[in-house]
């Protein structure tokens, strides 16, 4: 479904992503992990159309989408959430999600109905009428997911939707991701915390200094010498896995 071929992105003299290649098939749940500054979010920005790659190709269903604007890529069925959540703060939770639903629906009324359904799936029904800026962090992350889901993506990129959550919220969002995956959605999940990812992903790519240093099943990743080195000083994170 999505293929990256030697994708690179530089900022001035700094290489944020270096020749990263990866392959995502329909129905996959791919995890991307790496220490802070490894280039995970930059990679998402390239895939979703926020940055134009300096080298390589981004193929969505075999078509090179590099350089296309994010909204066009969303229309093709690929969307993302933001690590630093970007709710439409002055609008209600319901309107936030409804605006997402307008991606596929021409009618506001139909989008409203669709939004209600998605809000329920994501467990936000009680907050539907509240302005998005009044939500606590945990629910804002859910709103990010709900709004993206409402666009009816085939491939969803989740950028650290688990960071900063308490254990109960964490369990809830993992459960939600599992359910979405079970319903046939293809996902790429970025996470800084390895522990959560080990329980969730089928396959994991490890980025370090913008390069892929390992790829494999969670079990293979934890045994990888280079991954352990990359996370040196963060053993406690690994120990939780």
């Amino acid at each position: 479904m999505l293929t990256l071929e030697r994708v690179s992105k530089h900022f001035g003299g700094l290489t944020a992503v270096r020749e990263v290649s990866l392959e995502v098939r329909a129905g996959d749940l791919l995890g991307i992990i790496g220490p802070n500054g490894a280039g995970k979010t930059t990679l998402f920005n390239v895939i979703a159309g926020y940055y134009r790659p300096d080298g390589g190709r981004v193929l969505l269903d075999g078509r090179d989408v590099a350089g296309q604007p994010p909204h066009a890529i969303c229309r093709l069925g690929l969307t993302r959430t933001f690590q630093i959540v970007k709710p439409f703060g002055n609008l209600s939770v319901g309107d936030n999600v409804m605006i997402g639903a307008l991606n596929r629906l021409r009618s506001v009324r139909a989008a409203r109905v669709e939004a209600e359904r998605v809000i329920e799936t994501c467990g936000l029904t009680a907050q539907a009428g509240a302005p998005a800026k009044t939500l606590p962090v945990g629910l804002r992350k859910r709103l990010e997911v709900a709004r993206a889901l409402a666009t009816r993506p085939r491939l969803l990129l989740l950028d650290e939707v688990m960071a900063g959550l308490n254990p109960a919220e964490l369990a809830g969002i993992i459960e939600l991701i599992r359910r979405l995956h079970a319903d046939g959605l293809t996902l790429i999940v970025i996470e800084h915390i390895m522990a959560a990812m080990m329980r969730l992903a089928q396959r994991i790519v490890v980025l370090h200094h913008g390069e892929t240093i390992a790829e494999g099943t969670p079990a293979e990743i934890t045994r990888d010498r280079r991954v352990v080195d990359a996370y040196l000083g963060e053993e406690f994170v690994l120990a939780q896995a």
Partner: protein
Amino acid sequence: MAAALRGRAGALAFFAVAAAVPLAVRDQFFLDTLILILLWGALSAAWNVAGGYAGQVSLGHSAFFGIGAYSAALLSARYGQSPWIGMLIGMVLSVGAGLIIGYLSNRLRGPYFALSTIAFSQVLLIVASRWRGFTAGSEGIPVPFRPGFATLGLGHVAWAYLALALAALFYGIQVYLERSRVGYQLAGVREDEDAAEALGIPSRRLKVIAVTASAALTSVCGTLWAQYVGFVDPFYVFSVDLSIRFALNAIIGGLGTALGPWLGSILITALETYLRATFSGMKTGFAGIYLVIYGVALILVVRFVPEGLAGVAARLRARWTRAHA
């Protein structure tokens, strides 16, 4: 129908009163005030499309007002053409200028967009006031009065209904921006462009469309205003004060609300009319005091009542409903 009217009772009352006044009152002073309230409100509504709904705060909208005013005035004064044709030409020119400003809105954010719009209107001011051969320069041009609808030589009652029709049309455009697909998408762009893009919204295109539409609507008002007042002075029609006034009505009334521009206009126009009557002896004194008050009002409103009169009304209504529930 009932759903469509919910929360629109205030607007309905306002337009009903505005429609009834010319039937009951023939006093020119009152009619003049009514016409100005409606026209200034329409101008702020036009500004609101870009500044309120799309979040693109322009302080150079007098550029489009001036284009509309000059197009019709020059065409009728020099070539004896109908101001309606001038209105159309003004709209076309304003769409062109609006595309430039819309392009800038995609390159610049916040204060820098506002500054670039000021610079844009200043360029037009200099051109209009220095290009003597064509625009009559800084002396301005009188608009000939030829009775009839085709030439917009109308009496006060006819002007009142024309202004009312314009106000109702602009109100309707804003309601559309609140309830339609494109309106909601625009709200998303206003709140967060990156997030809007991720939801499949072409944010850049929508901003350009909003700014350009706002420009064309402003130009229409400029034409009507020039025909009503009968004189076009470049230092007035292209002034920064005028641009600020468009914003001011909308902010006082409630940024990004449909009725807000007229609520603000009632307050500001009434204040202006009152001060004009009180200080009629001293010309600069009057303009000065009036503008000092509106500068201070702007500072106070954004600080203490950022949701404007419409927001305050909504809050009071909510409290009332809760108390009687």
